[in-house]
């Protein structure tokens, strides 16, 4: 049988004898501790593998031990309060030939704007819809031995190309909306850009002096994500005197945070008052809408709404129709069957019911909230209001429910938690304050662990997983024996 240490060395890509002896020692130790040999081997390969060098384009949320070579485009600093301590965080943007991303470091940087640097051992998170390289320490940053080549030649693209194209781009588009945001000391302008082929989100990292409805020619923009154009400080942005007609989007082409975009679709399920509410569909996707101004259309109509915003409402996207609405003729949209849409979406996002076991408890029980903003405190600190002396005490259960094919984090508010645990918040406070039983909440929470429940609530899914804000919960109440009998009968 081959020596497992040799296999590890090969996987790690090293021939260092000192490292080999070190790994042998650790492997023996792991096996002695009862770790299965295969697993022990994998552990050590992971531990000693050199981090992979990546391009900005290849980075993904949650990645760790990443190395990259990039140029520093900007550097800003700001004061934050973390766990009661004032700290300075430095952040800015990096670029390489594949794109741009943000970075942050909690120490005074050993680099300046314009430097080409090698960054080791970083981890990647998402920040403001862009990737962020988190640098652990200045020890992980060194001057790059090779220059960062940024391809200056940008490809000429249309807005629709942002679906698949990644890299430098040159394009002409109309700015449909634009708003400024303050972030980490930088002012970012975010909005929606469009042309005759489609729409995309756009962010400008400096004030180029442009306004809504301007038609601009941009050279040196970066497309590093789908439907998103990033324009850095050193891009060229020029206002031009031409006209661009933006074609109306179908409902399935609308992206969250699009503003002032024209949308076409078939509407149904309408209720009218001062505003008109209902659903709008293109047969592929259906979204709720509110028309704030115009109500002169009815269920079954195909409409063109010229000024629409797509925003997050509860856990789904909603279309706000701000301007006039026009009834139009569109045979394709007229043919969409509303009945089928209703059937299809009744099972999709919105509310969800799960039945399964509570298999894990997360931080919860008695929690302290900021009396001003209701945020949960860490070490009596509110991230917005600093040290809090008189927190609001609340009760909440946060747990993982799992039905064997999927799992979701469930969050129970005070009323539901009280019902499930069998004591009121006041009773818990008394028990804890009188130090009769400081662990009482935890002990009671453990009673629900590993038991089956049925929960219903508002469903949300993001990159971290599924969450249900529970509105109703009860222990599973099924006639298990009768069901077992039915299952057996079905197979006889």
């Amino acid at each position, binding site marked *: 049988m081959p020596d497992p240490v040799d296999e590890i060395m090969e996987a790690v890509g090293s021939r260092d004898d000192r490292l080999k002896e070190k790994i042998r020692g650790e492997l023996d130790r792991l096996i*002695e*501790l*009862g770790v*299965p*040999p*295969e*697993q022990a081997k*994998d552990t050590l390969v992971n531990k000693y593998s050199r981090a992979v060098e990546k391009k900005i384009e290849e980075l993904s*949320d*949650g*990645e*760790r031990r990443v190395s990259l070579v990039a140029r520093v485009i900007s550097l800003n600093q700001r004061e934050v309060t973390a766990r009661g301590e004032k700290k300075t965080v430095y952040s800015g943007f990096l670029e390489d030939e594949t794109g741009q991303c943000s970075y942050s470091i909690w120490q005074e940087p050993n680099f300046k704007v314009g430097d080409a640097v090698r960054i080791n051992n970083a*981890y990647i*998170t998402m920040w403001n819809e862009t990737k962020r390289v988190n640098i652990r320490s200045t020890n992980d940053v060194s001057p790059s031995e090779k220059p960062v080549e940024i391809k200056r030649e940008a490809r000429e693209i249309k807005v629709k190309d942002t679906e698949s194209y990644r890299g430098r781009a040159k394009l002409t588009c109309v700015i449909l909306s634009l708003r400024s945001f303050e972030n980490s000391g930088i002012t970012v302008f975010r909005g929606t850009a469009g042309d005759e082929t489609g729409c995309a989100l756009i962010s400008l990292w400096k004030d180029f002096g442009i306004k809504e409805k301007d038609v601009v020619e941009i050279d040196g923009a970066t497309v590093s994500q789908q439907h998103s154009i990033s324009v850095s400080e050193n891009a060229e942005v020029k206002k031009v005197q031409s006209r661009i007609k933006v074609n109306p989007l179908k409902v399935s082409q609308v992206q969250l945070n699009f503003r002032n975009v024209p949308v076409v679709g078939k509407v149904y399920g309408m209720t009218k008052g001062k505003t008109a509410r209902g659903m709008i569909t293109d047969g592929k996707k259906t979204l709720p809408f509110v028309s704030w101004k115009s109500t002169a259309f009815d269920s079954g109509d195909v409409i063109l709404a010229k000024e629409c915003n797509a925003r997050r409402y509860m856990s789904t996207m909603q279309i706000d129709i701000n301007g006039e609405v026009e009834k139009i003729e569109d045979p394709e949209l007229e043919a969409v069957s509303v009945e089928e849409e209703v059937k299809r979406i009744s099972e999709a996002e919105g509310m969800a019911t799960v039945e399964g*076991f509570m*298999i*894990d408890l997360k931080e919860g029980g008695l929690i302290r909230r900021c009396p001003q903003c209701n945020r949960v405190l860490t070490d009596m600190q509110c991230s917005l209001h600093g040290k809090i002396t008189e927190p609001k005490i609340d009760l909440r259960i946060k747990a*993982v429910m*799992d*039905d*064997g*094919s*999927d*799992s979701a984090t469930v969050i129970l508010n005070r009323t539901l938690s009280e019902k499930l645990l069998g004591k009121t918040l006041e009773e818990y406070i008394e028990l804890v304050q009188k130090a009769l039983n400081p662990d009482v909440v935890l002990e009671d929470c*453990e009673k629900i*662990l*590993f*038991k*089956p429940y049925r929960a219903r609530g508002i469903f949300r899914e993001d*990159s*971290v*997983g599924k969450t249900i804000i529970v509105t109703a919960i009860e222990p*599973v109440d*099924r006639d*298990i*024996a*009768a*069901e*077992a*009998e039915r*299952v*057996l009968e079905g*197979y006889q």
Partner: protein
Amino acid sequence: MNDRLRKREPAKRAFFFELREANHQVSMGEKSPKYVLLPSGIYANRAFLIGILTSTERRENGIKAYMSDPTSDISFFSGRYTPEVTSFLNKTETPCICALVAKLGTFETQDGARFISLKPESIGRTDERAREYWILTTAQRTLERLEQLKEAKEGREALQAAKDAVEHYNTNLERYYRMVFAALRTILPQKAESLIPGDENETKSKELEEAKREALQIIERKEDGVTYEELIKEMKTYDESIVEEALNALMDEGTLFEPMLGRFKILEP
């Protein structure tokens, strides 16, 4: 790895009998979690088990625990890296009904055989109702997988995991159906024993025929024959008395012989 940034792997349901037969581990990519392919056709990174914690044995580095469900028993080890599980096992009196969340992996013995390993994540007591619900839902999930497996076996379109299970384990469908049915029977309503006379005998003779067929299949695979203990272990889904009856019947028919006490071989024609 940082669990907060990665989607949580669901805890799959499978009876212990099936878990014990699993031995194939795969990784779907360099950084992706590892999965164990289960014989009914599913890739599982994590499992949720409910059963009776039957006994624990203290070891130098931790504690070994045994759990059983209606189909089989299974063991796992908890050491200093899972202090909460270890401390629970140290202080809990056996037997009791327990739930276990465990990561799945495989390990290789010195003679090259591969077995499943359960790396405990959390453990706790639960109740009889939860246990019955676990048996029912585990049976339902397993039956769904067996349907896919059947499709895959018969060469029709099926889930990739089902196709992989056929390729890797060539899973015996009948055995697995029987395992599920046996588990379900343990939670049926308590009725007076067989209302219709004769019905019980009919079921029993059907079961006996199945037991005979399976015993033969097992013995056929091993050239040196099989010991009584091995057979009982392999035929966990049967009552021991049925296995004994099946062996007696096979010897009476002249299909089997017992070259030495407690070892069975097929009589070559």
